[in-house]
C-alpha cells in the first residue's frame, strides 16, 4: 500500500470552471482498473454462450461471402487480380472492429451508470476498455484472414509487418468516435439511435466490398477519404495483398488527420463533460 507516498499528497476538490486539461497521469494511475474492466467485458461477452465465439467467426465470414457473390460474381467488380474473398475480408477486419466496438463503447457510460454514480475514477477508461476488449475479436479475425490467404494462395509478404500500424489507426479511430458518442449519449439519449444509423450508412460509403479507386471520380477522391476508414482499409489491403494495392496516400494522410482531430476533440469534450456524468446519468 502506498500509504506513505500518498500521505503528503493533498487533493483539492473545487468547482472547475472553464477548460479542463486531460490528466494523463491520473489515467495511468488507474491502468489496473482499466485492465480489469476490459477483462470483465471479454469474460462477460464470451462466458454465457458458445455461439458467442461462433458468432465472431460467422459474422465476418458470412458478410464476406455475401459481398464476394454480390460484387465479385454478379457485379463483376474489378479485383485487381486478387481473390475476391481475401480482398473483402481484409477490409472487413477494420470495418467490423469499428462498427461492433463503436456501438458498445457508445453505450458503455450509460450501461455503467451504477459504477459512475458510486465510485470515482477517470471515466475515459470505460469506453477505452470496451474498445480494448474488441481486440479479442480482431485477433480471431486475423486468424481467419490467415486461413483465407493460405487457401487462396496469397503470398505472405513482409508488408504484413505493417498491419499493426493500420490496426493501431483503426483502434484510435474507434476510440475517438467512442469517446465522442459515449459522452454525448449521457446528455442526449437519442445518440443511441444515431450510432447504429452511422454504422449502417457507413458501410455504404466505406469500400468494404469493392475497390473504390476506379469508381470514385478524381475530384471526389479526397472528399471520399475524409472517412478515415477508407485510408485504413486501403492500408489493410496493401499489407495483405502486396504492392499492387498501394493505397492512395493523400487519402491515407487525410484520414489519419481526421482521426487525430476526432481523437483530440473527443477526449477534450469527454474530459470537460465528465464532471457532470454522475448528475445526469
Amino acid at each position: 500500500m502506498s500509504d506513505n507516498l500518498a500521505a503528503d499528497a493533498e487533493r483539492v476538490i473545487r468547482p472547475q470552471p472553464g477548460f479542463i486539461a486531460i490528466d494523463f497521469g491520473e489515467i495511468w494511475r488507474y491502468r489496473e482498473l482499466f485492465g480489469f474492466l476490459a477483462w470483465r467485458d471479454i469474460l462477460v461477452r464470451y462466458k454465457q454462450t458458445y455461439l458467442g465465439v461462433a458468432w465472431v467467426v460467422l459474422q465476418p465470414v458470412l458478410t464476406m461471402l455475401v459481398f464476394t457473390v454480390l460484387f465479385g460474381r454478379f457485379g463483376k467488380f474489378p479485383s485487381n487480380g486478387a481473390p475476391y474473398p481475401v480482398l473483402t475480408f481484409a477490409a472487413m477486419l477494420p470495418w467490423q472492429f469499428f462498427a461492433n466496438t463503436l456501438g458498445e463503447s457508445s453505450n458503455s457510460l450509460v450501461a455503467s451508470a451504477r459504477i459512475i454514480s458510486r465510485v470515482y475514477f477517470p471515466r475515459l477508461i470505460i469506453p477505452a476498455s470496451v474498445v480494448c476488449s474488441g481486440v479479442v475479436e480482431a485477433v480471431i479475425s486475423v486468424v481467419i484472414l490467415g486461413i483465407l490467404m493460405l487457401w487462396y494462395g496469397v503470398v505472405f509478404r513482409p508488408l504484413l509487418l505493417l498491419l499493426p500500424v493500420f490496426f493501431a489507426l483503426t483502434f484510435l479511430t474507434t476510440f475517438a468516435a467512442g469517446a465522442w458518442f459515449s459522452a454525448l449519449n449521457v446528455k442526449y439519449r437519442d445518440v443511441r439511435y444515431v450510432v447504429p444509423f452511422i454504422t449502417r450508412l457507413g458501410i455504404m460509403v466505406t469500400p468494404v466490398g469493392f475497390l473504390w479507386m476506379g469508381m470514385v471520380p478524381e475530384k471526389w477522391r479526397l472528399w471520399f477519404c475524409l472517412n478515415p476508414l477508407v485510408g485504413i482499409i486501403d492500408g489493410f489491403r496493401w499489407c495483405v495483398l502486396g504492392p499492387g494495392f498501394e493505397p492512395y496516400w493523400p487519402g491515407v494522410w487525410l484520414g489519419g488527420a481526421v482521426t487525430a482531430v476526432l481523437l483530440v476533440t473527443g477526449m477534450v469534450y469527454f474530459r470537460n463533460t465528465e464532471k457532470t456524468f454522475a448528475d445526469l446519468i
Partner: protein
Amino acid sequence: MAAITVRHLGKQYRLGTQTYDTLRDQLAGLFRRGARAERQTFWALKDVSFEVAKGDIVGVIGRNGAGKSTLLKILSQITEPTEGEVRIRGRVASLLEVGTGFHPELTGRENVFLNGAILGMTRAEITRKFDVIAAFAEMDTFLDTPVKHYSSGMTTRLAFAVAAHLEPEILIIDEVLAVGDAAFQKKCIGKMGEVARGGRTVIFVSHNMAAVTSLCTRGLYLERGQVKAAGPMQEIADAYLNDALPQGGKSSFRGDGQRGSGKLRFTDLEIRSGEVTGAAVCGAGLRFRLTYAAEQDRVAARFIVNIYDHQQIRLLAMDSVTDSSMPQFFPREGTVELQVPADVSLAPGRYSVELAAVIYDEVADHIPGAMEFEMRNGDFFGNGKMPHDPAAFLVKAPWSLQAPD
C-alpha cells in the same frame, strides 16, 4: 493536521424532468430562441464548512434530504461542488454501496477482483488478501460459481468482505451497514470498529443511530443542506433526536416550497386518527388530508405519502396511483385524503411524514419532513392486550385453532 477540510461547500441541482435532454429538442431549440423556460434550481448543500482531524470517526446524521449523500458524493469526487472547496490529505476509498460493479455472470472469485479494483485496491493487494476475504465472507465452496446463482445474502456477504478489507487512510461509508442479516451486520460493525481503532479517518453516514453512536467519536448534523451542529457524537445524536420531537407536542405542517417544479404545491397536511386531530392513537385508524394548490386546472397529479420512523427508516410508501379509484385529473385546488386501514397500525412511537406530488414523472413538490407525529398507545386489539415483543407495526391477524385431523 486535519485530514479533511471543507470550506463553504455548496451544491446546486437543477430540478425537473430535464435530467437529460434529447439532441432533437436541442436542435429544435435552436429555432426557438428564448423560448426555453428558466429551470428551477435547488441547493442540496449550502455553505457547509467543517474539519475532520486525522483519526476521527465522524458520523454524519440528518433527516432525509438534508444533504448527507450529496456531501459524500462530493467528498468521493463523484460529483463536483458548485462552490467552495474540499482539501483531503491521504488516500481515500469511498463505499457508497456494497458490491458496486458486481456482475451476475462472473464467479465469486472474479467479482472479488473486479470489485476490489473498482474500490481502489491493486491487483497485488487483492491477491494477497483473497483468502482472508473469502474466509470473512464465510465462503469457500462457491467461489467459482457465477454470482447469479448466489442467494442475495451470500452476494452481500462477499461484497462486504471485499469492502471491509480496504485499507485506505480515509474511508467514506454510506449506509452500507443496513444490509445483510443481523449477525453479519454485527461482524461488519466489529470490523469497522477495528479499522477505526487502527487510526484511520472514517466518515460514516447512517440512519442507524445505534451504530453511529457506538462507532463514531464526532458527529456532524446536517439540516436542509447546512451544518446544524458539529461536536462530540453523543451530544450531536441527542440534539438530533430532540429535534425529531414535535415542538410542544403539536405537529405542524412545514412546506418549504424549495423542491420540485412548483406546478403543484402542498398547502396543508392534517393527520387525523378517529375524531382526534393532530395526534394518532393505535387502533383508531390514520388519515392524512393533503391540501394542495396547482398552477392549472385538470392536473394529472400523483400523490405520495411516505412514513419514516425516528431512525429515518422508511416504513410505509403510499402512492395514489396504486388506487385505481383515484381520478386521473385533479382540480386546481383541492384536498385528497389517504386512509391507512384501521386493522394495521404503526407501533407507538414518533414518525415523520414525507410528501411528494408528481406530474407526468416530474416532481412538482417534495417535502421530506412535512410533519412529525406521535402514535400513542391505544387499545389496538380492543381487549387491552399487546404482543409480547414490540415491532414496527401492529396488525389484527386472526388466529385459529385447527381441529385435529
